[in-house]
């Protein structure tokens, strides 16, 4: 899965991206380049600033300085929903769902997120059911067919993670940002998720965070290692893995754990 296309376009690029929280620098002049159509892993120890970086990329946090370009356009300081409209979808590290909606209703809501159809207060909610085939397909894709109409609040953790992925897929993004898609999963679910991400990466660009080096090795074309907010190393998985600085800073620690 190495990208060998000549001069691939940048799906995502950051220049000197920095975020300070009251004097504490969580992200420190990060220059990131993700070529279109590739799968890029973001790794680093706890507190390295991975989630903060995702929050910057998706507009949930405003950078202290630096720029963010998505498919060549400057999106720095843009509201999250507008960035989503540019083809960027994210999943959340801490499962973030709508407690009062069923999985089916989640996907229905996600499918109309990029349209103006949600504004139709004068129509029946039955309209939401019109894209049933798509909803069923997405729920089947993540293995939630059986639970489609059960309350989300009662689902197991792994099932919630799966629904989280279905929501991201429903937005039909060109760029996916997945924050620890396999965190807390059992080995079977991890393998299923790897397969799923591999499938959805076809024709898309994926940036994901994961602590599981097996997942990173299986999926990533390139890896960026963050430490204390700064980029420590960047390159193909095998290269980064062999980098002595990375081994001492992170991989060694993770391997010995």
């Amino acid at each position, binding site marked *: 899965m190495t990208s060998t296309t000549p001069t691939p376009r940048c799906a995502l690029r950051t220049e000197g991206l920095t975020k300070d929280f009251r004097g504490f620098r969580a992200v420190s002049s990060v220059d990131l380049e993700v070529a279109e159509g590739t799968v890029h892993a973001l790794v680093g120890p706890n507190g390295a600033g991975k989630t903060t970086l995702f929050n910057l990329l998706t507009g949930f946090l405003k950078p202290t300085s630096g720029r963010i370009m998505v498919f060549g356009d400057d999106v720095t300081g843009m509201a999250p929903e507008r960035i989503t409209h540019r083809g960027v979808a994210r999943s959340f590290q801490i499962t973030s769902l709508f407690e009062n909606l069923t999985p089916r209703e989640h996907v229905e809501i996600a499918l109309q*997120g990029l349209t103006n159809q949600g504004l139709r207060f004068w129509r029946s909610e039955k309209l939401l059911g019109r894209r049933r085939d798509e909803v069923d397909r997405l729920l089947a894709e993540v293995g939630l067919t059986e639970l489609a109409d059960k309350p989300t609040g009662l689902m197991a953790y792994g099932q919630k993670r799966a629904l989280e992925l279905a929501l991201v897929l429903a937005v039909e993004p060109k760029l996916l940002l997945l924050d620890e898609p396999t965190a807390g999963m059992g080995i079977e679910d991890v393998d299923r998720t790897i397969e799923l991400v591999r499938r959805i990466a076809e024709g898309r660009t994926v940036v994901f965070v994961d602590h599981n080096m097996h997942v990173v090795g299986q999926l990533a074309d390139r890896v960026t290692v963050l430490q204390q907010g700064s980029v420590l190393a960047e390159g193909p998985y095998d290269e980064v893995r062999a980098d002595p600085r990375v081994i001492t800073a992170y991989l060694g620690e993770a391997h010995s754990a």
Partner: protein
Amino acid sequence: MTSIATAGASVTEQHAAIAGARPWQRLVLLAVGLLVALGLPWFVYPPVAMDIAAWALFAVALDLLLGYCGLLSFGHAAFWGGSAYATGLIAIHLGVPFPLAVLGGAVFAMILAVPIGYLSVKRSGIYFAMVTLAFAQMLFFIANQASSLTGGENGLQGVPRSFFGIEAVETDAFFFYYAALPIILLGMWAAWRIVHSPFGRVLVAIRDNAPRARALGYDVERYKLIVFVLSAGLSGLAGGVFAVSHGFVALPELHWTTSGEVVLMTVLGGIGTLWGGVIGAGLIVMLADYLASSGFDGIGIVTGGVFVTVVLLFRRGIWGTARHLWLNRKRS
């Protein structure tokens, strides 16, 4: 404040209620509701019946915002009272049939809601409540000052009840009730439609998890602004009917105590139940009427006491508790 908002019945429960209620059960509920609405002036002094209907719509309109969006407005008197004045002025100066005047009042309330909503939906929780309260108080002082237009402290006197020359409606509160009821019912139907629309579904999603909704591409502030304006419009319909029914508009319609009263009715009936407000309104209006006619002047203390008791004992409000019990009865 937010803890009150989250005390509302969950939508899962509403869905369960909808899924669990067979069509005939829903029809029975609807029929009972319509029968009560149609029979009310036979059992209650007709002007009081009209008050109940108007306050009921007002409470339903507030629940649209509080129950389905988690936004506690403490300035809804601006829309009820603002529309009351606008309706009164239209009726006085244009002499149009009262439903048209009421419609004009509701439109005025919606126009008023655009800037107020624009500035307040950026805030949440207690701050949203404070901003809406501030605007409503501002309107109160303006109405008080502009006495040449509004009558100031004396209120706006002599609002006519013109209705195509049909004298029974224009002079008799009993017949007027039936002429005005369709406006109230239309408003209630609109609230129901909004809640059960694609828009209503998005509102629930935003209330549950606004950042997630934004990540899916929803412009949360836009949705909140729209529901704010819709809620104001329905409150305006209610306030307009109230003004025409009384034949004058008193300054307190714009006072913060009016905003508080409708919050009380909504919470009493059950937040996020939509129809709970109808029960809350019926209870409070009848209680206030009973106390007033028996010469007791501590109405606030009694209604406040009822409120505290109900909220402490039945967190979900009257309607919410009843629904909860019904669902659990079916489960066991």
